[in-house]
């Protein structure tokens, strides 16, 4: 019993095990490389969703500009790959061989100096980690120090996404414009388009994703995680316990941004191109819905949500091309209205109490009190948004009476 309760208490761990089984065993064995590559692509979005769980679920901060960081990470990697793909021999048809094709189309005759460092993979990797984080730091610092939050923050992040999109598209000589950077071929001479490379990249991606989940889990378990929950609940109290609340928000925003950057880089590697269509507002909002479907409080739930929505999107757009937008719309509305805590919430609300009840019926079970405590906790932790009134106290008082 204790074991079971422990196991359920850390239901995320069970979810992680299930996810690991799915990602590392079931999917590679059951699908061909085309579908697996597709799943790999979805898993790059999962980085964003995991970041959003930390930022939105735990931090209570909704950013509608996560695509910016995904895009920046992706572009850093794509710049490296593009330079490698633009060697003088394969670009000899251009008027200036040796520079990326889109530069040549835009009458640029020499590689801009700020592109030079991207010839080196270590620099590119460093950049894809640092640049999104740095931008998040600047935006976050300015906003959170002035206590901007909630809706305002969401809209300002949207504006940032818009600015970056217009910039990237406008500066097409340096960025590839609307087309993005296409036709990425090799990394340090290793052809990333072959099936074997795809397998390897898929697993690298999956391992990185799990590392990210575990890191976030560790943060949640630390005092910082507790503080974030506390902040979402009573920000002023945290402040008057001597914490500089803004610093914590900046941290979690930077963390989410860095995860996005990694996801973006893995995207460039696995899909072979990067385009400004990830930077904009639409993909950023879609990524929020991935996290919402999975459950904004659950790291593993977010990954499941990402997979589910994307499978759904692919399946529906293949099977009902005229209807899939309606289905997407229904998904958005349905999740928000009926299941504010997504898949993970469904598990918490229905599956877990049911499991506990079936266990509780068995004779060898000790007094029911601790079970009640577990259920009430799950009720209390159902608060998706800090603004939502807490049902906990009444439920709690009723709890023992029912038992």
């Amino acid at each position, binding site marked *: 019993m204790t074991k079971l309760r422990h196991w359920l208490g850390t239901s995320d761990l069970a979810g992680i095990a299930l996810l690991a089984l799915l990602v590392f065993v079931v999917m590679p064995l059951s699908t061909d490389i085309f579908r697996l590559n597709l799943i790999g692509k979805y898993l790059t979005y999962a980085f964003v969703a995991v970041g959003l769980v930390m930022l939105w679920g735990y931090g209570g901060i909704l950013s509608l500009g996560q695509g910016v960081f995904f895009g920046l990470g992706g572009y850093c990697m794509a710049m490296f790959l593009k330079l490698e793909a633009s060697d003088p021999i394969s670009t000899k048809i251009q008027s200036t061989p040796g520079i990326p094709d889109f530069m040549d189309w835009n009458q640029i005759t020499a590689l801009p100096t700020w592109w030079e460092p991207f010839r080196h993979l270590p620099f590119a990797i460093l950049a894809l980690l640092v640049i999104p984080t740095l931008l998040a730091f600047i935006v976050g610092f300015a906003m959170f120090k002035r206590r901007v939050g909630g809706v305002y923050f969401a809209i300002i992040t949207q504006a940032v996404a818009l600015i970056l999109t217009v910039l990237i598209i406008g500066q097409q000589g340096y960025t590839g414009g609307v087309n993005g950077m296409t036709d990425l071929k090799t990394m340090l001479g290793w052809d990333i388009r072959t099936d074997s490379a795809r397998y390897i990249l898929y697993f690298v991606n999956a391992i990185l994703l799990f590392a990210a989940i575990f890191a976030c889990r560790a943060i949640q378990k630390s005092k910082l995680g507790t503080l974030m929950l506390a902040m979402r609940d009573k920000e002023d109290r945290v402040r008057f316990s001597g914490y500089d609340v803004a610093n914590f928000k900046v941290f979690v925003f930077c963390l989410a941004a860095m995860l996005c950057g990694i996801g973006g880089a893995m995207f460039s590697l696995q899909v072979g191109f990067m385009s400004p269509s*990830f930077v904009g507002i639409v993909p950023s909002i879609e990524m929020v819905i991935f996290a919402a479907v999975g459950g904004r409080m659950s790291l593993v739930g977010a990954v499941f949500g990402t997979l589910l929505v994307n499978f759904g999107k692919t399946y529906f757009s293949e099977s009902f091309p005229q209807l899939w937008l309606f289905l997407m719309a229904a998904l958005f509305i349905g999740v928000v209205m009926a299941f504010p805590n997504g898949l993970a919430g469904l598990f918490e609300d229905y599956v877990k109490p049911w499991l506990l009840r079936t266990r509780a019926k068995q004779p060898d079970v000790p007094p029911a009190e601790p079970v009640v405590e577990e259920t009430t906790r799950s009720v209390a932790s159902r608060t998706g948004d800090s603004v939502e009134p807490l049902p906990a106290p009444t439920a709690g008082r009723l709890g023992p009476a029912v038992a």
Partner: protein
Amino acid sequence: MSTNDDRKGLQSLSRRQFSMGLAALPLIGMPGLSMAAKYPTAQVNTTKLAVTDTEVIVGQLHSATGTMAISETGSIQAERLAIEQINAMGGVLGRQIKIIQEDGASDWPTFAEKSKKLLVNDRVAAVFGCWTSASRKAVLPIFEKENGMLYYPTFYEGLEQSKNVIYTGQEATQQIIYGLDWVAKEKKAKTFFLIGSDYIWPRTSNKIARKHIENFQKGKVVGEEYYPLGHTNFNSLINKIKIAKPDCVYAIVVGGSNVAFYKQLKAAGITADKQLILTISVTEDELLGIGGENCNGFYACMKYFQSLDNPNNKKFVEAFKAKYGAKEVIGDVTQAAYLGPWIWKATVEKAGSFDIDKIAAASAGIELKTAPEGYVKVHENHHLWSKARIGQIQTDGQFKLIAESPNLIEPNPFPKGYQ
């Protein structure tokens, strides 16, 4: 296509076949079967494409949703019409064409994903699709790697040539140079104001235009401006045009911006009697949204107008309206999209095979005498030889043909002297 009644009969038959699938095949398959027997599947399909004894599957990849659906719907319709007509004639090498349609959703990564699905999973024999340059650039590496065949309908910026793509629209020089020469000669235009939406096609086109104006016409470019896609306010730009007073405004504005641009031009008093405007981004499809009355008298340079007076086109327009409704219009790209399946059919029959490599090799020199635009021929560089035509916008949203190039213009995707 034979008589009108005949075609209708075949059409309803093929429509039934669409809904009933294979069940209806034997009915019309009779003449085809003998044809198919002449070309055994093992022989015409050595690379495991989706070709059976009775059927060949092709992909269609356009945006049915999102902002680009506005433009791409016409292409979807035209390609479907062409395939239906081909099926009614007995198909390709005796095989009925079946379509798998995918939605690119106006999102380039989705185009990439779907193209991969069509090529790798569905093993389609050809794909008719894409519209924007960005979507084509996104799928191109996939077509080259997975060895697929793409029939791309849109006029575009050039600077590209691929074994795996047939470009049924014009590359930039085919569209730009004739139009500029015409305004210089007929309208005595010396100074030009270049306007574009901010992405690769308008920028590259304007680059070619500028070189041509400055180096070959000895004219002058007095302004060059770009606005973000989706921009809806052009009053400042219009004032700049008024200051610069160009002989000719050369406009490559696209999408929702297009409507705003022309409506605001008219409101600012810039009408055809005061200002010469030449555009390469307005077809009959765009005029649906702009309204012919808001831009009548301006000129566009295309290779096709719905109003072209030739028997091929009459038949095409008639069939199109019969299928999709009398109110539908046909623009340059829609016609180019219609060519795709026919060129593919002709190529497969010439090669006697569905194999991509054989089709790629056989494409050069394919002629289409039944093309609505008149006559087209595939060049070695996989673009089409085509004419350029100047049309003047009428209030009813149609073009009046003003001039056309005497000969077919050779496609030249990498024009020397324009880089």
